[in-house]
């Protein structure tokens, strides 16, 4: 009985870790200087069924797309959508940090720079 409980606990821990894993795709983008013009990137990203949230930082030239639990999105799809919106992706990375964490990091950096 104890063995069964222990196994269940391990399994539920593992599964919960999988279920709550966050995947955020972070792209560095050239040419993104105007919010009115860059709204196309946000709208195209939000239109994807995999997207949970989108973050755009003009000063840092960053677009971050946080995916819903269990969802995946290829780097090429992100690159193509940003290109379609009129911009150029210079690099792309996948992180496990949610957008709130990424945003807080940039805000802290910008605050320090002031």
């Amino acid at each position, binding site marked *: 009985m104890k063995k069964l409980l222990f196994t269940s606990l391990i399994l539920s821990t593992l599964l919960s870790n999988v279920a709550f894993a966050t995947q955020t795709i972070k792209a560095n983008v050239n*040419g993104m200087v105007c919010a009115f013009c860059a709204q*196309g990137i946000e709208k195209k990203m939000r239109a994807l069924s995999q997207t949970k949230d989108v973050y755009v930082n003009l000063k840092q030239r960053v677009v971050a797309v946080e995916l819903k639990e269990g969802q995946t999105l290829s780097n090429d799809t992100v690159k193509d959508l940003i290109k379609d919106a009129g911009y150029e992706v210079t690099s792309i990375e996948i992180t496990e940090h949610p957008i709130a964490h990424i945003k807080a990091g940039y805000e802290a950096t910008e605050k320090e720079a002031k």
Partner: protein
Amino acid sequence: MFIKPLNVIIPCLGLLLSNQYATAGPMGFSGSAMTMGDFNNNWRETFINYAITPRDAFGVSATYMRADDKSKTRTLEEVTYTRLLNRWNMPHAQANLWFMGGLGMLQGEDKQAGNDQSFDKIMVTPGVQFDYETTRVYFAATHRFYRASDINHDYSAVRTGFSFYETEYDKTQPWFILEARNMNGLSEKIEITPMLRFINKNFFVEAGVNNSREPRFNFMYIF
């Protein structure tokens, strides 16, 4: 006497300051519709276009033009095509070269002492625009032909400006913009308009008063 030199100096200053520039282009992103309005006493223009690709948009436009002395009025309804000829995406800047063209009907009225005339003509309006922008500075130069038989109302404009400060993507950013423009055959002078521009991710508005002390209002919105 004092005004004439200013009409030359201010646009030249604008050009000199314009080694760095920024603004919204004449079309939105692929699959979007963009509407724009530009209003003052002698020039009222509104258009809507739809971007069928990241580089091509088709639309319709209506423009009312009037001479400074009110002796001539023109109304133009046209179908338009906008093409992004080239875009340069740089780390902290973007530059664009646009083609804008239209084909439509011009209704004109010339009021001269004892000889009022009205006419309808087909008008073509091909033109180009170059713009450059960063998050802090903006420049645009536009030249567009407005031609019909025996009619030449070619339009030239230069704009430059700066933002007061940088903002986050979802905040409204205020700008100062200075524009110099002229329409051949309708105005002998260069219209100079200092404007305040407010850019948000959802809207774009400008308001100012020109060198004839007339108000000016522009807006853009993308659906």
